[in-house]
């Protein structure tokens, strides 16, 4: 569907007319195209998953819109000022982060979002794979250009975990937990992973790409057996499907609010809020941080967002990276 094209306008009109039928004739007059052209557009919409009721004398009315990551659907649900206002939606690509990095080679506005129904090379940390089966999850990346030094940028990644937390809570009513640094857990299992990639000079960030993967409607079989003990999906936990479009729009809204807050007040309010939702603090942890293994009790988050771990001998050690177990 071309942005701002006739098809999108037809869809938008059918959406607003609700219960009322719109006749093919009225549509053809409005858009100054033949009734056959209208019929073709309707069928193209049907192919994309829209369901219409058509009546020979009355015309068409929209029954349901598909829960697909189509620009028209996302834009319809979106309530942000700038995040997601520039959208690149793909059916299948390697990785939304890689595509976003390619897009930054030209001038794209801050808040540009790349989504994919399926990733063939979804990425985790250190060359790990992120399983992203088709039309089941939210696999997307957000491009930000914060005017901060790279020194402070890791703190910014905390807004993404919080945004996913808030959005899941709003859409499903469940209250997920956060695991340091930025996983989102439901019932102790991971439903969301966040991988941020940055391009920066010594003193300025060129751009940040926040890659977010949310397991929304994945079935147990979509997850490899090796990760089932640690990972889950909203559908598995809630035993019902969740609207991906609605959830995406909500995540982007929360992300924009937290990003604006970060720009205005710095990281402190974000960290305070994050700590309240954190499942890592107070627990015994074992962290593989680079070539080092740290074992102890996760005591607090430092001002720079690193994890402070109290070791058995009473000393406190800082971790800036790592897998918490």
């Amino acid at each position, binding site marked *: 569907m071309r942005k701002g094209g006739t098809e999108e306008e037809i869809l938008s009109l059918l959406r607003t007319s609700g219960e009322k039928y719109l006749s093919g004739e009225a549509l053809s007059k409005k858009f100054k195209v033949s009734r056959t052209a209208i019929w073709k557009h309707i069928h193209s919409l049907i192919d994309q998953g829209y369901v219409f009721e058509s009546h020979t004398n009355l015309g068409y009315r929209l029954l349901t819109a598909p829960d697909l990551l189509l620009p028209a659907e996302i834009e319809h649900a979106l309530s942000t000022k700038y995040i997601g206002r520039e959208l690149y939606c793909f059916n299948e690509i390697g990785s939304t982060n890689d595509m976003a990095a390619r897009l930054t080679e030209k001038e794209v506005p801050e808040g540009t979002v790349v989504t994919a129904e399926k990733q063939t090379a979804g990425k985790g*940390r*250190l*060359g*790990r794979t992120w399983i992203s089966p088709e039309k089941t999850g939210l696999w997307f990346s957000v491009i930000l250009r914060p005017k901060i*030094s*790279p*020194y402070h*940028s*890791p*703190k*910014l*990644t*905390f807004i993404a975990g919080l945004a996913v937390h808030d959005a899941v809570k709003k859409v499903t009513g469940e209250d997920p937990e956060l695991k340091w*640094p*930025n996983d989102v857990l439901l019932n102790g299992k991971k439903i969301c992973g*966040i*991988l*941020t*990639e*940055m*391009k*920066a*000079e*010594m*003193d300025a960030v060129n751009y*940040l790409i926040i890659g977010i993967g949310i397991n929304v409607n994945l079935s147990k079989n979509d997850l490899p057996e090796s990760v089932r003990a640690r990972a889950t999906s909203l559908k598995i936990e809630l035993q019902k499907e969740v609207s991906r479009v609605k959830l995406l729009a909500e995540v982007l809204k929360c992300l924009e609010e937290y990003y604006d807050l970060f720009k205005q007040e710095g990281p402190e309010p974000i960290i305070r809020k994050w700590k309240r939702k954190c499942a890592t603090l107070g627990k015994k942890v074992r962290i593989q*941080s*680079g*070539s*080092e293994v740290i074992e102890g009790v996760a005591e607090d988050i430092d001002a*720079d*967002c*690193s994890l402070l771990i109290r070791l058995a001998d009473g000393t406190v050690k800082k971790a*800036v*990276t*790592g897998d918490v177990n």
Partner: protein
Amino acid sequence: MNVKEIKELIELLKGNEITELEIEREGVKIKLKKGSGNIVTTQLLAAPQQVVQQVPAAPAPSAKKDEKPAEKKIDGVTINSPMVGTFYKSPAPDAASFVKEGDLVSEGKTVCIIEAMKLMNEIKSEVKGKIVKILVENGQPVEFGQPLFLVEPA
């Protein structure tokens, strides 16, 4: 810069062929020199600047046995870490390193990744030249401003 960081720099010097290290950042200039006791000097500066080091190259083979090989000095620049994090020499544990010692790099070439809080920062070389020495180990924590690579500009 605190005493702990200065101590770390001294440690860095000990385990390396570097004989002299001069760092300027956060308004402080520090000069360390290996030999009969470390000399530490500090002075205030307006803004952090790039670190320039003097490093001896491998001794040139000498014809005469009794003659001490002349130490050739290389004017090197370092690529420093823009943030606190973990240093990775390759994109994945089983993947090839971005660069090896002796490699020629051009401006913009990715030399390593620094990670903090799942934020991966691909560090690019800002100079064209030869990687003389990799100053940190894979998986090692690094501090802000810590030299990662010594590059001999071409």
